[in-house]
Each structure stands twice: as structure tokens, then as C-alpha cells.
């Protein structure tokens, strides 16, 4: 990727300014297409009726939640291994956005489950794994909220992200095993292959729309974080200047 070329923040800011309008336009377009397809093109599912339409935001939410952690892991490597100056900025800004999408996945999952299983929350293997992922996101955000100096928090957050990334498959496996241990496989199974093509197409378009939204928010959040760190540096300079007074 072009990470290395964006080494210094000002060039990234310039690129971000140019890129954002296009990204925003593409996101809007993708959502228009996706929502149209989701509500007008996709047939109702023979089993769940119209609630299948919730899939179109539930599944992309889960994908984006996991994509977010993947991006953070790359950024964590950037901080620890390649010492890339923007890596910590990339890591810190991806967390709230990833957490938001994971939250969307959980909420839509609960709302979708209500008609299916009669309660908002069922300790189904997939939902539980996403919940653990959400808790890991909150843990990282709590870490940044606890340490004022970004440089000090950077290394700790990077290590925590990588440890989390390594643990995600283990958590996924253990939760699956845990849920099958206690409960028959959940009533409704949305496997990749069993999705009816008529539903798959809108799902993919919505997934694209969500990904573009993630990208737009991510680039602008990174731009904000760079400005926030610049403000912090200037304020330290201001205090130092007052020292001389």
C-alpha cells in the first residue's frame, strides 16, 4: 500500500482533502444502490418473511467490525515494526469507527433475533463472538482515554491490538464450542453458501457501501487526529515559550 509514501502528515492531509469528496460521493452512491436493491429487488425470505432485510445491515456491520480490527493490526505492526509516523494515528482512529460498526451489528442482530427466537439476546456463537470483539474495542478505547500522552499510549495500544488479533480466532473457536456444548445449533443458519443469489447481490452492494463509508470516516478521522496532535504540540510549545517570559 502507499503507507510509506504518506510518511509525513502534511502530505497525508493534502491527499485526504482531495480524496474525501470523491469518497463521500462514492459512499452516497453505493448506499443509494444498496438500499434500493435491499428493499425493492430482494425477495422476501420464505422462512423469515421481511426481516431478512435486516441482514443487509447486520452482516456488513460484522464484516466491518472485523475489517476494522484487521486494519488496526496492520497499523499496530506499523507502530511496532516499521515505526511509521502515521501508524499510531491510523490505529487510534480506526477503533471508534470499528466499534461503532460492531455495535450496529450487535443491535441489528438483537432486533433480528427478537422475532426469530423470542428474546432480544441469545447467546448464539456468532453474536457472542461479535460481542467479545466489541468489548475488546471498548477496552482499547478505554486505554486511550486513560493516557494523555499519545506517544506513551501508542506502544501499549499496538501490543494490545496484536494480542487481540491473535486471540480473535481462538475466541471464535472457543465460543463456538461453548455454544454447541449447551444449545442445539441456532435455529436459523446464514451460511455463505446457503444465501439465495437474489439476496446475495444486494448484500454485496450494501457491504461495498459500508466499506466506502468506513473509508470516508476513517480518512477524515485520521485527518482530525493529525490536527489534534499538531494542536497538542503547539500548546506544549506555547507553554515552553511562556517559560522564557
Amino acid at each position, binding site marked *: 500500500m502507499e503507507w510509506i509514501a504518506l510518511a509525513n502528515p502534511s502530505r497525508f492531509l493534502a491527499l485526504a482533502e482531495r480524496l474525501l469528496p470523491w469518497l463521500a460521493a462514492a459512499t452516497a452512491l453505493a448506499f443509494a444502490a444498496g438500499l434500493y436493491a435491499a428493499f425493492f429487488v430482494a425477495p422476501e425470505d420464505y422462512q423469515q418473511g421481511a426481516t431478512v432485510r435486516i441482514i443487509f445491515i447486520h452482516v456488513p456491520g460484522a464484516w466491518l467490525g472485523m475489517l476494522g480490527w484487521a486494519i488496526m493490526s496492520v497499523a499496530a505492526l506499523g507502530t511496532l515494526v516499521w515505526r511509521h509516523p502515521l501508524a499510531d494515528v491510523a490505529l487510534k482512529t480506526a477503533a471508534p469507527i470499528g466499534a461503532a460498526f460492531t455495535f450496529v451489528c450487535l443491535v441489528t442482530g438483537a432486533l433480528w433475533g427478537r422475532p426469530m427466537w423470542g428474546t432480544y439476546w441469545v447467546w448464539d456463537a456468532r453474536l457472542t463472538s461479535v460481542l467479545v470483539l466489541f468489548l475488546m474495542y471498548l477496552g482499547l478505547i478505554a486505554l486511550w482515554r486513560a493516557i*494523555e500522552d499519545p506517544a506513551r499510549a501508542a506502544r501499549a495500544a499496538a501490543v494490545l491490538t496484536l494480542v487481540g488479533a491473535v486471540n480473535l480466532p481462538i475466541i471464535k473457536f472457543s465460543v463456538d464450542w461453548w455454544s454447541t456444548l449447551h444449545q442445539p445449533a441456532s435455529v436459523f443458519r446464514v451460511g455463505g453458501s446457503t444465501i439465495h443469489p437474489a439476496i446475495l447481490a444486494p448484500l454485496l452492494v450494501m457491504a461495498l457501501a459500508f466499506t466506502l463509508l468506513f473509508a470516508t470516516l476513517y480518512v477524515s478521522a485520521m485527518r482530525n487526529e493529525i490536527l489534534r496532535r499538531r494542536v497538542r504540540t503547539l500548546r506544549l510549545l*506555547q*507553554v*515552553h515559550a*511562556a*517559560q522564557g*517570559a
Partner: protein
Amino acid sequence: MRLSGSELECVRGGKRVFANIGFAVGAGEALLLLGPNGAGKSSLLRMVAGLLRPAAGSLELAGANCDRSLAEQAHYLGHLDPLKSSLSVGENLRFWTRFLGGGRGEGPDEALRVVGLERVGDLPAGYLSAGQRRRLSIARLVAVERPIWLLDEPASVLDADGQALLGEVMRRHLAADGLILAATHAPLGLDPARELRLGAVLP
């Protein structure tokens, strides 16, 4: 106003730090506590501030309004600067002014100007250097008017300008019939100050 202590004894951790120490300080006077480290200078100041219970002896404050205890009429400037890093410089000073305040005194904004921190008023206190943090503590002395000043090596982290500022603030306090008890190694430039030597070899 007259602050006096008689036969004061301090025991810390089972060891007697000093015994039968007496002193008297009148309004407009300064008393410097001298002596090696561990002689109990800080302990005596904390004892006067009511932060440390004397093993023996007593402290009297004559001539001040007697509805306020000694501690409520004293400023204590210790080694530590009581500042919260996540609060701004102004917020820290405004808090202490309201908490310790009796209404009289320069007030926080004027105090910041006196100590030269007015331009960093809204920055987090965590960004300040050690010298600036000490100046902010000195601003507390200026912002809230309390007659008795108990200063524990006030000039330790201050540069030349800082020490000059401290000297000026202390002289103004003495001129206003204030009273200073200061433990110090460096000369504080208070020429008419009397001295109390601690740490003579104990029997």
C-alpha cells in the same frame, strides 16, 4: 497577631526528630528554619499547619480572629505542587481559590498575572515545567489572603526570575503584616529575618 510554639516535640516512626523547640513570630516578621536534612524542618512546618500531631508541646495564635483554627488561617507550600494535570492552569487555581478562599485576596486571574502564567491559563497543568508548577502554587498564596505562610523550601525548583518573584511576593506579604515561617537552604533575600536552627545533636 503573634504565632508561638513552646516545648514542641516530634516523633516519627518511633524516632524523636526534635524536642522542646520554642519559637515566636509576630506580624510582619519572618522566621527561617535552618538545619541539615532530616532535622525536622518540614515536620515542624507540617505541625504548625495541623497536618502532623505534636508528641508534646503546644502552639498558640494570639490576636487573630479566633473563630478560625490555625490551619484555616495558614497557607502551606510543601515540596509537592497540588495540581491536577488534566485540569487547566486556570481551573486548578480557581478551584483552590474557592476551596481555601475567604473572599479576600487578589483572586485567581490577578494572581496568574503576578506569577507570569497568565498566557497559559487555559492549557492543561500537565504541560507545565517544574518551575511553572511551583509558580502556580505561589499564585495560590497570592490568590487567597491568609496571614500565616508556611513555606517548605519554596525556592528549590525556581530559576533566578522565579526566586526574584518569590522574594517580591514574600516582601509584599510581610509589608501587609503577614507572617512567614520558611524552611530553606538557599537565602530567600528576607534581610530582617530571624533564624531558628534545628538538628542540634540530641541527647
